[in-house]
């Protein structure tokens, strides 16, 4: 994920409307923990970028190889709930079995379902470094919205 752009505080103040179209997410400050604002050209892209953003914070993605697959089918009561449940599922892959995600493919998505597959590998202390332990995804100030320039989601994680 070398094209992944992370921005500093100064760049963070730029409005999403004027943001670099390559920007997939940015980190925002929150008293509690880790806030991620995620962008996507469509809903599928938003979810995909959210999964990558989570693992870009957990580890150095360049060192992760797409060796194994994990399939997922997630449901939610609305779009926000769906994003949270999806991130729960993705996060458990690491917290439960030490699986580090490299990439993500979504085959089907609507407001209440998302189906797809992720690729990655199991954490190996000799190869991977854990930067941040993301312990849980929260409902706090969760937002998923369609903007004139695509989709935007805001999620706060407990770290």
């Amino acid at each position, binding site marked *: 994920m070398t094209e992944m752009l992370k921005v500093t505080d100064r760049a963070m103040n730029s409005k999403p409307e004027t943001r670099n179209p390559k920007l997939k997410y940015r*980190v925002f400050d929150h008293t509690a923990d880790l806030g991620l604002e995620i962008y996507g050209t469509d809903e599928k892209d938003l979810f995909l970028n959210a999964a990558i953003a989570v693992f870009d914070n957990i580890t150095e993605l360049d060192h992760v190889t797409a060796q194994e697959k994990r399939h997922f089918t997630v449901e939610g*009561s609305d779009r926000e*709930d769906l994003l949270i449940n999806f991130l729960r599922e993705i996060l*458990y892959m690491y917290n*439960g079995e030490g699986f580090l995600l490299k990439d993500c493919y979504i085959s089907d998505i609507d407001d209440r379902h998302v189906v797809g597959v992720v690729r990655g590998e199991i954490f190996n202390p000799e190869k991977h470094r854990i930067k941040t*332990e993301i312990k849980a995804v929260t409902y*706090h100030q969760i937002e998923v919205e369609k903007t004139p320039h695509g989709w935007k989601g805001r999620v706060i994680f*407990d770290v």
Partner: protein
Amino acid sequence: MSDITMKKLDEYRWIIPPVGGMRVPGMIYSSDTMIGGIGSDESPKQVSNVAYLPGIVKYSLAMPDMHWGYGFPIGGVAAFDLKEGIISPGGVGYDINCGVRLMTTRLHIDEIRDRLHDLVAALFRDIPTGVGSKGSINLSFSEEKKVLKEGARWAVNHGYGTSGDLLATEDEGTMEGADPDCVSDRALERGKQQLGTLGSGNHFLEIEVVEKIFDEKVAAAFGLERNQVVVVIHSGSRGFGYQVCDDYLARMVKKIGKLGFLLPDRQLACAYFDSDEGRQYFAAMVCAANYAWANRQMLMHWTREIFERTLKKSPRDIGMRLVYDVCHNIAKIEEFIIDGEKKKVCVHRKGATRAFPPGHPAVPAAYRHVGQPVLIPGDMGTGSYVLVGTEKAFSETFGSTCHGAGRVMSRSRAKKVSKGRSIRKEMADRNVIVMATGKGTLHEEIPEAYKDIDSVVDVVHEAGLSRKVARLRAVGCIKG
């Protein structure tokens, strides 16, 4: 900035009058100097939100270390009627039974000053710390379920410590009502490799010295004397508790619409205590509480062994004795006098410590004449306080007091302001040897990121929610 109206009631109490859907007033314990800071985050709004929940009794309370949390504020205390009231995972927190234990030794600081570095290094090497750290034991699911039911007793029965340790633990290290069938396979999976690990973030194991005694009689009852070497462990239920909280949040959020009242924040998702969901969450939460007690019991046992090995002294010479172990993220069924009548309620303490008065049957027999020991850890390397529970806390705050310093700066902000500094060296300049696994941990945990522990403790002391017994100063610290 919060749009909540707070009215000063007396020197240490601010009331939030009930407006909108609030069923009871909010009550915040603070001081003139601290209240300004409290008003700057959303936590007063969260105190008010908690007051919306059905069955809440008397007040939605907040301690002086209050800060923003998920749903309930951290530092929040709320009691609910067992018939009409709710139970909420957000009112307990993710790290169920995060808590503190204090051990005294027979050692004087002067005896070990030149061995301190070796001791901290040995603790750092042999106690599993840090991000996703795994313990030296790998439990089968069936053995893990025994831990969930038996708590610290499981640890003692497996050779980690003595039965005397159990008498000096809140609930004797085993809370009644655990049902491992209410716990998901995911929680079991996260828990099976992490028993006996310290964890990361604000958790720590510290060697401290009794610096000041405020109350000679109570200090003597707790076995504390000046210049004595003590150990403080701050840890919780690790990934297990997180998964339990998350599983039940997900389940309860699904049913928000069926509760029959409006929830001001999804993170406050809850269930009626007297319902299947409520009962099951409680039974699963108790499992996590027991897991945490077993965890701290094992960490203490290894600490004893490391002291003996490093100092080449016998257990008798070191005399590491558990003073007490308190939890500060929990929901419990406890009995209080409410409006003149004895009543059992479900007390949520999220970042708050039980502080029971002298004479209460839940206080260990050895301390019953003085009251329950209350352990308040400060920020990294600052030290801790030992307090004692009071009648006033019992009648005003459902027997609760503060739990620590309370974060004022986000982790990322703390990292930013401390960029380029050597925190380890800064701590060494303050005569604290610090060792941490994570690169960022020391930066995230800089002292400026927390409220001043002395001010927090002064408020609970002056407000009568607990009384100062001793102040401990950190000399060595290991972190995740």
